[in-house]
């Protein structure tokens, strides 16, 4: 259950951003990759629990799930990895590298002006 620590890191960032713009942050958007090892629903639960009764409320969390993608070393094409199939669906090569899915990143914040 490290979603609590992650939610805490997110709130610190929201506080910093709120101070920088001297405005209330309404919503925070994050990208969570399939391979980030973070459960979106427990993150949401922790986040909402921590925000409640603080000056940051109301603050909504918008999560974008980023699917696992690999890129082929041979034909340089990108493809989604479904059911752990990492071989290239275009040329069949098994030499492919991670191209997306480890994200645990902020995307945006919505701020009252």
């Amino acid at each position, binding site marked *: 259950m*490290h979603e609590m620590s992650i939610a805490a*890191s997110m709130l610190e960032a929201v506080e910093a951003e709120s101070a920088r713009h001297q405005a209330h942050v309404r919503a925070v958007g*994050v990208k969570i990759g399939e391979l980030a090892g973070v459960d979106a629903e427990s993150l949401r639960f922790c986040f909402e629990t921590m925000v409640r009764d603080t000056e940051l409320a109301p603050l909504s969390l918008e999560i974008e799930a980023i699917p696992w993608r690999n890129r082929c070393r041979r034909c340089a094409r990108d493809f989604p990895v479904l059911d752990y199939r990492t071989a290239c669906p275009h040329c069949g090569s098994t030499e492919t590298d991670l191209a997306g899915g480890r994200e645990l990143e902020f995307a945006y914040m919505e701020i009252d002006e």
Partner: protein
Amino acid sequence: MTRVPIARKVLNENDRLAAELRRGFETHGTLCVNLISSPGSGKTMLLERTLASFDPSRRVAVLTGDIQTDNDAQRLARYGFPVRQITTGGACHLDARMVAQALGDWQPDAFDLLLIENVGNLVCPSSYDLGEEARVVLFSVTEGEDKPLKYPATFHRADLVVLNKIDLLPYVPFRIDLAREYLRRVQPEIEIVEVSCTTGAGLDTWREWLDRRARTAERHLSQTAELRSPPA
């Protein structure tokens, strides 16, 4: 309402500290290994067997993480190498700040090898970079062979998987061929070492891997030194 784009990682602060630690390790040619597994897979036992096999002159140190107790540090201290316990007091993973604090007054150039035993957990440690050069994931034949499929985030980032307790294979319904297949499904080029910390089987291969990685870390150091002071 205005939408402001923010392009930074959520664990920015941890990543910044981890990068600082990594620079320190690289500058001094120290190989830092982050050891991850579920509770009871044999991380401490693997470390005990590893330390017991080292020459006493070897410059090695251990950090061991647990939620409570310093039992592991006591077990590991018997081998004569510096050991420090990190007690997280509830946190299910180590983070870069805990590692930096635990290193404390240890001089960064005092060790060639730093072994970090993470808190027993196959999920949370995978999100936290500790500044390590190599991530080793342990898993044992008393667990399900589908662990890699259930915890892909952790196995996908492993530089090496140590499959432990192979001496118990005759007694458990664990299919090692399936375990290898699942590991390769998550990471097709994954390196696997099969060991038994009880009988000692496979431990030579594990130590060779460790020595090889330690030599690479030292080689980087000498190359960096040459770059800094080119021959006249």
